[in-house]
């Protein structure tokens, strides 16, 4: 644990160094890189040791108790791995803007954000947890509004701030209710009180879904997420989407471990929310015209997949089917890590294209594969991974979640209804494929749709490094799944409080070698096939020509299919659910996606509330004598009240 604290100290020192050395950029770069790199690598060591079987550890004391058990260890890796990539990318990307922006402050913030995140997942008491949580949320706000001169960035920041504080409020209520007026505030004390909670902790579980759900972006609590993630600088989007929203998942899992046995309705609710978030998230992503908003909606989708695993796990506990519980939680954990890897990668890739072209509008891009070949490869790996294609990591974790859902289905009793999740996950997978085919095809393939896209150029090696690091992580888990699935199942078994041997008894672990074989076989076939085809092509007469345009002689890049046209026929199947708003005039057609919850429900409702409050405005006259009159009137009313009710029970003797 000392090692872990030292690592966090190094990260904090990195933040300080960025502020202290802001006048000497060359030195600041090196010191920051060294400290952040060392902090993340060293901090991961105790987590890896715990996952490899070392006993859980704890440190600090009294109220400020921290510790690393299996669950914390998994999330420490989620924080420090993708976190390092984001911080590194940010360090390089921001360097160019040193002249006109507070770059050193932004760097300091991201290093401190990593510290706060690491403390959130290791806190062992309510006070350190909530303090770290709030620091994390507020630092994230400042990271998001980096480009605060733009109005939409300020609006996104405000919506985020309101949402996150609403969530924190729910969490404070949760822990206050759980601990009671006299109870201890350490997590151990909460666990001891769990059995005494009224109605099986129903209120706690609702508040957890509200508070942690707002952070994780569960539909319909996701409304703040697309704006905030799209408006932030790309490395911050990567950190927010990859890591910060996972704190909501961590919170839910921690509540489950402390409560020991969630009631059945909660498992079903989480599973249903997972299906709804998954399907709606990907549908809304398909409707987007903005690259980063699209990726943000995919985070909603993937949180849905994680929740499907989590719900299956909770139901496994409820209905006493240990294997389903371990598989469900294990799948959720692994998908959390995987999503952190590929979503950070995709946001960094999106950042590189945005930096090069100056636009995030899909329909202004195109043909970047030629101008940014390495970025394209990295982005393609991330896309294939998020769609769940072999030989990458997304396939492995979705396979685990399928195993959990099907395992529930082949058991006995009501848990068999988890099968609905199989159909939901299949639909999500199919739609995600369509969506990423659209993103990759429209942004990177074809011809440049505008002058912006024609300006595309490869980013510097310092920016490509983090992307390829994340891509390597995606590939590694896909090719050698045993190294990731075993620890994930161990964590899942830990949450479910069943021995790891439960997973060993099933044929799930036995599947890891065939999956590795399949992945390697696929890579070998593709490699051999490509080489062979290249040889064949050398022997044949090969010509180059324009794309076949059915005889049309002067094709232009504007004739290409666009992102909107690619998604149009698919979205038509789902009608108003997609939130796509179309405007047709005789001369023009225009479509733009609406955020159904924020623009459709919350803002109109808020307008009504504000309208109602407006009627109270006459009492605020802004003149001193009016307020004095109010004070005197209130005093008189109080005196009257005491005079009338003076003999009542509540009065002092």
């Amino acid at each position, binding site marked *: 644990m000392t090692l872990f604290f030292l690592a966090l100290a190094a990260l904090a020192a990195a933040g300080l160094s960025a502020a202290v050395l802001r006048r000497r950029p060359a030195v600041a770069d090196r010191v920051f890189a060294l400290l952040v790199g060392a902090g993340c690598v060293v901090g991961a060591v105790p987590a890896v040791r715990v996952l490899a079987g070392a006993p859980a550890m704890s440190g600090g004391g009294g109220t400020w108790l921290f510790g690393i058990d299996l669950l914390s260890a998994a999330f420490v890796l989620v924080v420090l791995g993708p976190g390092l990539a984001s911080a590194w990318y940010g360090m390089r990307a921001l360097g160019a803007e040193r002249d006109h922006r507070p770059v050193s402050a932004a760097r300091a913030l991201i290093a401190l954000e990593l510290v706060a995140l690491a403390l959130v997942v290791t806190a062992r008491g309510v006070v350190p947890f909530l303090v770290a949580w709030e620091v994390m949320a507020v630092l994230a706000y400042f990271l998001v509004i980096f480009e605060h001169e733009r109005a939409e960035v300020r609006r996104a920041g405000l919506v985020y701030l309101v949402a996150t504080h609403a969530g924190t409020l729910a969490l404070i209520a949760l822990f206050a209710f759980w601990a009671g007026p006299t109870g201890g505030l350490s997590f151990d004390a909460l666990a001891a009180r769990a059995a005494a909670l009224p109605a099986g902790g129903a209120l706690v579980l609702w508040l957890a879904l509200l508070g942690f759900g707002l952070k994780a972006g569960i539909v319909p609590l996701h409304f703040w997420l697309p704006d905030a993630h799209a408006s932030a600088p790309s490395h911050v989007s990567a950190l927010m989407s990859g890591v910060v929203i996972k704190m909501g998942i961590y919170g839910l899992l921690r509540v489950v471990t402390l409560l020991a046995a969630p009631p059945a309705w909660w498992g079903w609710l989480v599973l249903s929310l997972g299906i709804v978030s998954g399907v709606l998230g990907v549908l809304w992503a398909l409707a987007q015209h903005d690259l980063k908003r699209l990726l943000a909606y995919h985070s909603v989708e993937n949180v849905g997949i994680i929740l499907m695993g989590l719900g299956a796990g909770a139901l496994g506990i409820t209905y006493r089917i240990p294997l389903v519980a371990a598989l469900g939680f294990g799948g959720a954990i692994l998908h959390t890590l995987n999503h952190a890897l590929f979503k950070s990668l995709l946001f960094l890739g999106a950042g590189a294209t945005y930096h090069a072209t100056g636009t995030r509008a899909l329909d202004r891009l195109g043909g970047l594969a030629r101008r940014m070949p390495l970025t394209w490869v990295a982005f393609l790996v991330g896309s294939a991974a998020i*769609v769940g*294609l072999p030989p990458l990591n997304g396939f492995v974790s979705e396979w685990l979640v399928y195993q959990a859902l099907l395992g529930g289905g082949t058991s006995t009793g009501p848990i068999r209804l988890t099968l609905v999740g199989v159909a939901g996950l299949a639909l999500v997978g199919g739609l995600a494929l369509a969506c990423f085919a659209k993103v990759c095809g429209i942004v990177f393939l074809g011809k440049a749709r505008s002058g912006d896209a024609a300006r595309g150029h490869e980013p510097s090696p310092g920016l490509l490094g983090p992307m390829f690091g994340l891509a390597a992580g995606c590939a590694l888990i896909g090719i050698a799944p045993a190294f990731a699935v075993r620890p994930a199942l161990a964590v899942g078994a830990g949450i479910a409080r069943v021995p790891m041997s439960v997973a060993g008894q099933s044929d799930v672990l036995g599947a890891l070698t065939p999956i590795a074989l399949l992945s390697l076989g*696929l890579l070998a076939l593709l490699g051999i096939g490509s080489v062979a085809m290249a040889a064949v092509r050398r022997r*044949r007469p090969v010509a180059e020509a324009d794309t076949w345009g*059915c005889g049309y002689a002067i094709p232009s890049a504007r004739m290409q299919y666009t992102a909107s046209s690619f998604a149009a*026929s698919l979205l038509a199947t789902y009608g108003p659910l997609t939130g796509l708003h179309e405007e047709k005039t005789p001369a023009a057609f225009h479509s733009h996606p609406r955020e159904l919850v924020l623009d459709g429900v919350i803002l109109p409702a808020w307008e009504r509330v504000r309208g109602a409050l407006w009627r109270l405005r006459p009492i605020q006259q802004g003149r001193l004598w009016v307020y004095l009159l109010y004070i005197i009137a209130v005093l008189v009313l109080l005196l009257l009240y005491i005079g009338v009710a003076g003999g009542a029970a509540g009065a002092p003797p």
Partner: protein
Amino acid sequence: MTAWPLAGLGAMLVLAPLLPGVAAKTRATLTGRRGAPVWQLYRDLRRLWRKGAVYSTTTTWIFRLAPVAGVATPMLAVLLVPLDGQAALLRFAGDFVAFAALLALGRFTLVLAALDTGSSFEGMGASRDAGFASLVEPALFLGFVVLALGTGQSSLSGMLGGETGSSLSWGAGAPSLAMVAVSLFFVLLAEASRVPVDDPATHLELTMIHEVAVLDHSGPDLALLLYGGALRMGLFAALPVVVLVSRAGLTAPLALGAVLVGTVAVAVAVGVIEASMARLRLSRVPQFLVAASVLASLGVILQLLA
């Protein structure tokens, strides 16, 4: 023990190009034409393989990778299917997810290759291909769920292979088995781009799905794509047959023979459907695919009640 699965793999790789020919011949015969011989695709493949190729200047390496992936992915997927009615060459818990994901990978690269050309026609085909595939996926998975429920197994070899589960033998399991078989047949029609989802014989780019997505591929690349498409058709034609044959309790060589004959029979059925009905309007296709999911869901419900 692996002799028969290997024979199955070999038969599938060699005989798959026969299936589109059988379907086309059936269609021609029923509509009063003589039609091309059933081995026409072999001739086409040989001719295309020897030809040169024209590449669009817009395309990149992904355009050249797609034909390879189009063959490699169904080839690996064949390894997972117990064509001899016993056990597949590669089997593991939940390998049906890998089966679907491998085919999805083939589709992903094909769609990207279509978008790589920058042609609006190919974009159209790619969009339709990806959109319809997203509706096929639930039907396919629900079909596997029925089999998993009936057998208590989660690998294709367990679901389809030798050890038949309690409720999924002939008799009690017949209604849900039949629903799965029909649902998988619908999936085949969509996956292999056949009537009523797509028409391989159409001549107008605007109405095509699969054909238009490969419009710019030529020569050896087109040969690979056609062969991969035939493999895909063979794979999905064999699935409903294996579902039915594996319940009959035949020994490996007999079962393999029955699967191969049945697969050809499915191709004949595809031809009969092509001769008897027209392609659906594009906006109707989703309803057809949802119907496949609904059928499979009914199978699931029957299994849950059993």
